[in-house]
């Protein structure tokens, strides 16, 4: 009986460690906590000029998000058809647009906070979801999930899921639809995004 139990325990241990080897969920959660903490303390609540806030936000954004990875995903099937120049330019424009829009949106985060609610697994290799909720002034708290990808021991955010809506999927559908309906294709998309920065 004891032997059976030991084998069982060893099996459980083996599987749990092998799952952990895949991606360290605790470390991923800690990473998102650090990013949001820095964002709120050093940017939203900091008593510095707007220009300084924007600069800090851009630095934090580039450090925390894997924009090359996300940018490639949101172009979908059009990524393969794109020339290296178009790819480079799209990533660059997409990065700038995200920084400028989220910098503004994040500034309205004053007085709010993220409450961490553990992690949940992803079917994609080396990725995990960090679950948070944001208490609102009124009504239900918003559910915000951070999709984190581990690569060579470092972590990057690759998607944010707000109330079940993935920002990566939404952007991908939007851009795919734009390119399909537009004779200018990717170049027209790049020009349109540029005009919004």
């Amino acid at each position, binding site marked *: 009986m004891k032997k059976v139990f030991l084998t069982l325990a060893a099996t459980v241990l083996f599987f749990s460690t092998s799952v952990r080897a895949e991606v360290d969920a605790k470390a991923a959660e800690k990473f998102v906590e650090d990013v949001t903490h820095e964002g709120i303390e050093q940017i939203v609540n900091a008593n510095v000029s707007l220009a300084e806030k924007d600069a800090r936000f851009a630095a934090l954004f580039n450090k925390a998000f894997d924009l090359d990875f996300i940018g490639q995903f949101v172009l979908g099937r059009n990524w393969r058809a794109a020339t290296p120049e178009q790819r480079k330019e799209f990533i660059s424009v997409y990065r700038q647009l995200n920084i400028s829009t989220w910098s503004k949106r994040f500034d309205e985060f004053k007085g709010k906070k993220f409450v961490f609610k553990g992690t949940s697994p992803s079917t994609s290799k080396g990725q995990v979801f960090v679950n948070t909720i944001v208490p609102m*002034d009124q009504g239900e708290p918003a559910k915000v999930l951070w999709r984190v990808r581990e690569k060579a021991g470092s972590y990057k955010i690759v998607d944010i*899921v707000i109330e079940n809506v993935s920002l990566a999927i939404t952007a991908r559908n939007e851009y795919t639809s734009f390119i399909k309906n537009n004779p200018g294709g990717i170049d027209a998309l790049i020009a349109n995004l540029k005009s919004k920065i």
Partner: protein
Amino acid sequence: MTKHLRLAVGLVAILMTSACAFDGRLSRPENKADPYENFNRKVFAFNESFYDNVMFPIAKGYRKVTTPFVRERVSSFLANVKEPVSAANYLLQLKFVPALKSVGRFVVNTTMGLGGMFDVAPGWKLERKDTSFNETLASWCVVEGPYIVLPFLGASSPRSLTGTVVDAVADPIYWMTYQDANISAKVSYPYTAMGYIAFAEAYQDIYNDLKQNSVDFYSTLRSAYIQKQKGYKCRFAPEAEGESYDFDFDEDFDETDAE
């Protein structure tokens, strides 16, 4: 009440059959979730101009003549009136604890929260969590049907529209005033109007933000709407079925459109 019930049941039946029949099987559109895209885009354009020229100016006026404190009292009041609808839907979803919580919230907020103007229930560990008949249908595995954009109301589907109609008929204000046409006109219409205005006031900023940063606003809202609906789980779905937002996100993405 029986008349209402019959109306509701009839509507549900019709819409459910049409949802099944039109579930993308009759046509092979570019986007299989949106077989009526051309028509939907026209309604969408109409809605955009209606929101910009009528709804949002009214919402701005409302914002001008009220303080955040007053608006919070109004929103709390409106939410509290709908609390019994959530409670009934939780019952239909066989979620008994949330149903009881919802009833508890209604009792606490209606009395101690001064007719619902103050949401004091969280002090009793009764946090707000709304549900709808759309979610009830989803929980019983009713398919959503094709994406449709409704005039004035926006993104919807046969299942969602059924939910909206049933929830509206189940609204206490509606059935309390139904018997007397006089009271109905004096209470029901202003109540409904106030609901829309408060909603428009609360969402106009995020709407404008999204619109400004989007290259194809129609697609953005459609995508968000469809993803949100996919989050409502069917109770007979196998456990193994993952979360809808956990799509394949790897170095080499395949050609299929994740949606």
